[in-house]
């Protein structure tokens, strides 16, 4: 029985420049902390190795502190073998990085920089396919087919890249054949690149990133605990929750008359909002008052979250006479409101113009509430 943790795409050192305040720092810190989290999981599940299938570092030239602290963290867990595979973000082209790593790596860290088998443990051969360049333009796992290992060895492949047209970086010229595990007689092929965990086939898995870094996968960071009973045995794969921050993109579809504040509250997670990044896409219909209330509620709720955004350009403002009555029953104000409402509903106008008119009407409503 060989047990290890399969993870990838740690993207250490990623800076999250699109956020402000202390959030980028917290997100970076969480990425670093995931190393300890993986080690703890390995300890608690009796895994002897942690395979990092590429993109351990976000760039080819991570800041020295990022690199050194990561290695230090790995060194702390002496009984675990860490295998670092070059991915497309930290390919072998980053010669400086890899020469630094070679110089600095502690004994329990294996740099899988050559396409040749590594004895991972007694009776376990690791076949890595390191990324030679940012875009190798070929299937780097091809060599595994012809690589012979002693009989009775567990063969584990380690690679980074897309298996089909999808890729995190939308570069699809170098596609790993999905049936590589079968072709090369691998017991397990550990893949990196896709940030959400996916089972490609019973012997091929993407572990996903242990700490999410974007609104794409709507799932907390995970790692895979892989147990292989022996050569040719089906691997047992279990998902481990590792992520600290949850990135969620949520859809809020409102019906006219529905209470948007309540709907929003129900939609949003109630637990650990501090570690939650939420992007709410609002669609459907809402009355002026509801819309205003929703905006207020969103502004109020945003304080609970690490990051919160309400995107309501898809939300159609429904205006009834009594909504407009709240602006004014008659006169010029009412006329302005009517004009804006008509413009917002005028199909002949551009989407943008209608949006502006709707927003202007909502603003008029809000102002009218303030001055009455």
């Amino acid at each position, binding site marked *: 029985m060989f047990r290890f943790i399969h993870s990838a795409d740690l993207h250490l050192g990623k800076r999250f420049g699109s956020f402000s305040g202390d959030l*980028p720092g917290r997100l970076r810190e969480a990425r670093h902390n995931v190393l300890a989290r993986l080690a703890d999981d390995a300890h608690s599940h009796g895994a002897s190795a942690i395979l990092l299938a590429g993109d351990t570092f976000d760039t*080819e030239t991570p800041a020295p502190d*990022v690199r050194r602290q990561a290695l230090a963290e790995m060194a702390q867990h002496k009984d675990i073998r860490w295998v670092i595979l070059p991915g497309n973000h930290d390919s072998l082209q980053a*010669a400086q990085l890899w020469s630094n790593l070679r110089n600095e790596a502690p004994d329990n860290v294996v740099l899988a920089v050559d396409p040749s088998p590594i004895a991972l443990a007694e009776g376990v051969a690791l076949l890595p396919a390191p990324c030679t360049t940012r875009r190798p333009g070929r299937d780097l796992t091809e060599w595994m087919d012809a690589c012979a290992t002693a009989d009775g060895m567990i063969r584990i492949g380690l690679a980074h890249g897309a298996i089909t047209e999808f890729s995190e970086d939308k570069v699809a010229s170098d596609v790993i054949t999905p049936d590589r595990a079968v072709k090369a007689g691998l017991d397990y092929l550990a893949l990196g690149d896709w940030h959400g965990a996916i089972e490609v086939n019973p012997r091929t898995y993407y572990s996903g990133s242990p700490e999410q870094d974007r609104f794409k996968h709507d799932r907390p960071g995970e790692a895979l605990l892989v147990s292989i009973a022996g050569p040719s045995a089906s691997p047992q794969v279990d998902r481990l929750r590792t992520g600290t921050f949850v990135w969620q993109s949520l859809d809020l579809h409102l019906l006219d008359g529905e209470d948007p504040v309540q709907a929003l509250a129900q939609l949003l997670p109630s637990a650990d909002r501090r570690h939650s990044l939420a992007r709410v896409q609002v669609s459907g219909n809402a009355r002026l008052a509801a819309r205003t209330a929703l905006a207020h509620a969103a502004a109020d709720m945003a304080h609970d979250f690490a990051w919160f955004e309400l995107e309501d350009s898809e939300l159609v403002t429904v205006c009834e006479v009594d909504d407009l009555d709240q602006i004014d029953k008659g006169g010029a104000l009412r006329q302005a409101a009517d*004009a804006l409402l008509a413009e917002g509903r005028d199909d002949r106008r551009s989407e943008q113009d209608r949006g502006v008119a709707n*927003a202007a009407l909502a603003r008029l409503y809000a102002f009218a509430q303030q001055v009455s």
Partner: protein
Amino acid sequence: MRILALRLFNVKRFAGRGVAIENIGEGVNVLCKPNEFGKSTSFEALHALFFQPHTSTAGEVRNLRPYSGGTPVVQADISTEAGQYRITKQFYTGKSARVEDLVSGRLIAQADEAENFISDLVQGGAGGPAGLLWVRQGITGIEKRSKAEEDNEKQVRASLLESVQGEVEAVTGGRRIAEIMNKTSISLDALVTPTGRPKSGGRYAIACDERDRLAVAERALEADVQQLRAALDERATAMRQLTELQKPDEKAKRVADITIAQSAIETARQLADRLKAAEAELALARERHQAAHSENERFQDAVVEVKSLEALTHKANLKRDDAVAKRQDTTATIDAARMEAEAAEKEASEARQLLARLDAAEKARTAADRLVELQRRLQNAETARETIEAAEAELAQVKIPADAIDELQDLDVEIVQLRTLRDSARPTVSIRYEPGHTGSVSMNGAPLIDGQEHGYDGHATLVAPGIGTIALRSNQPERSDDQLEQLVAKRDALLSAMGVADLAAARARQVEAQKLEAQINEAKAVLRVLAPEGMPALRSEIAAITPDEAEEIELKADPVATRQVLEDAEHRRQQANQKARDAEPVRERAEGAFVGAQTELATLAARMQQTAALLGPADLQETKETELQDRLAKLSEDLEQAEAQAEALRAKTPDLESLRAAHKRLVSVDQGIDANIGQLRETIAGLNAQIKARSDDAVEEQWSETKDALEAAQMRVAGFEAEVATLQRLATALDSARSDARDLYLKPVMAELKPLLRLLFDDVAITFDDKTLLPQTILRNGQQEDVDRLSGGMREQLSVLTRLAFARLLARDGRAAPVILDDALVYSDDDRIEKMFDALHRQANDQQIIIFSCRQRAFQQLGGNILQLSDWDPT
């Protein structure tokens, strides 16, 4: 809309009972009762009926309830263009709203539908003023006001003013719109300048600046990253090259290659020397062989040549003989022809001389004849000339100019004319003698003939014999002109010049002259025939004939025969000459052929001599030929041997130059690689430093961070742009709505208000604030007054008038609504109130006005339909 009746039950003080106001008519309706009679209650009930939903429990509805509680019921009958209806509302318990057809009693609508029906009535369409036709002590009735406020006497004045403002506001949005516009513009001002550019220091501008800054930084970092990546790639390549170059066995191999190349050069050099010697030997053998070969060839050629020369000489001899024969033949022909030509020439010459002498004789004879003729002509010509000269001399004597005769003739005629004229003007005397009379009277000595008239000039003396002398005086003045005398004198002068006595003599002379002229002409013609070119020419022609020419030669020979002899001789000579000429070219050709043949023979002889020398004596020729053949064969053998030797060496000897080039190349490759290694090491060192610096700076991380930040900043700017667009759109919407409102309502209302104001005040105008559209100042008697400072009376009057103006506007629009006034004229004095009544009546022509008042005495003057309260039992 018109209200026909109002009924209420269990409202306020009418707890548990009902009252009704029936028969509300068109025009002015007045309910004038003392206080606490239920007027205000009626007003409030009516207002609640129209403006409060039946489900409402709002303050206004609450106020309708009597202290004892219960359910207030309000009912009104109304008339619209569509028909007559009864509207009933019950509040609180059993709350309901109903609309029935007044005539048929049919239920038309209830509950919410009834509310909608009512709402349509009072609103009269979107945007129209709703409750503004209700006035109650200056309160519009739709404004929410606390009881305390209402009770406050001080507030009343203010609210009176505000009621007018309220009218306007209801239309234009007034303060609210101004306030919202203010908010909009404050929000907008915080972001952009009036021209729509980001306001510096504002959040928008900061976001823009941040975005621009990030864009610059991002580009710079991208360049850094690209540089770093380029450096990494370059270093990788350099490293790879270096490793390749530095492989130890490679270097050893290069050195070994160079040594091998060098020894190859040495071997090749030795071989080359041997080859050179062999080549020299070969050259010698070839030369010898060549010489022998040439000699042999020359000998063979000479043998052939001799044969050919002999044939040629024979042919040339034949040619020469032929030419000689031809030459002799033609020379004889030519000599014979020459002799004949000379004989013919001699004969021709004799004939020619004879002919010349015959000609001379003929010429001389002709000249003598001509001389005689010419001399005769000269003589005749001399005669003619003499005749001409004599005639011309005579003519000079008698010649009269032709015009002189004409002039003389003219003068004679003129003189006669003048004389006649003068005679006719002269006094005349005529006498008739008595028969038997003797003697006669004479005048100036001339006898007067009987019956004849006698003229006289100036005076005359008549002598009548026997009687005496009679003096006659004409007493006519003497003629001043002497024209006649002049003419006579002229004639006389002319005559004397011509040398004739009178005209007849002149004419005779003229005839004589003409005769002479004819004679001269004739002589001249003769002369011209005789000597056409003049006498001197004739004379010189005579002189030209020389005496010897004229000499006569006597010859008996016949010129014609002589000429024939000459011609024959000439012909013979020509023919002989032609014959000689014909033979000449033949002879010349024969001569040429002879010379050619001779030359050819000489040449052939020379060549023969040369060839013979080459061949040697004829008896030794054969031996010589054999010798030559044997030597050639031997030398050929030698040459072949030498060639084979040289060829063998040549094949063995490699190209020394290419060996040297290969060696040179190997050496330079080795040196180049050494240099390259040095250079690569340098490059790598340089790149190492560069990469190290950049890697430690983590430029890629910075780049991706900046990229994200830039994206976020762009989003932020987009957000601000959207915000600005929204605010700008709102501002535009508000602006255009306000100006529309002004155009739609405010201006027409002002137009309506003007005549009403004039009823009350002379020379009054209201100005409205352009921004808030609220009444601002009153212009009265040329003085501006702030509206706030007007008297209470003035304000309430303004308020009522404004309402009436609105009502009128609505009526014109086909949406007539009743104007309802509850104690609206409290502060007005008697004078003004009458004027207000006038205004109301004027307005009431097409308008329902319902007035509630407690001022019984004052309102007696109002007239109109007096309303009464009656009991009403709703059951």
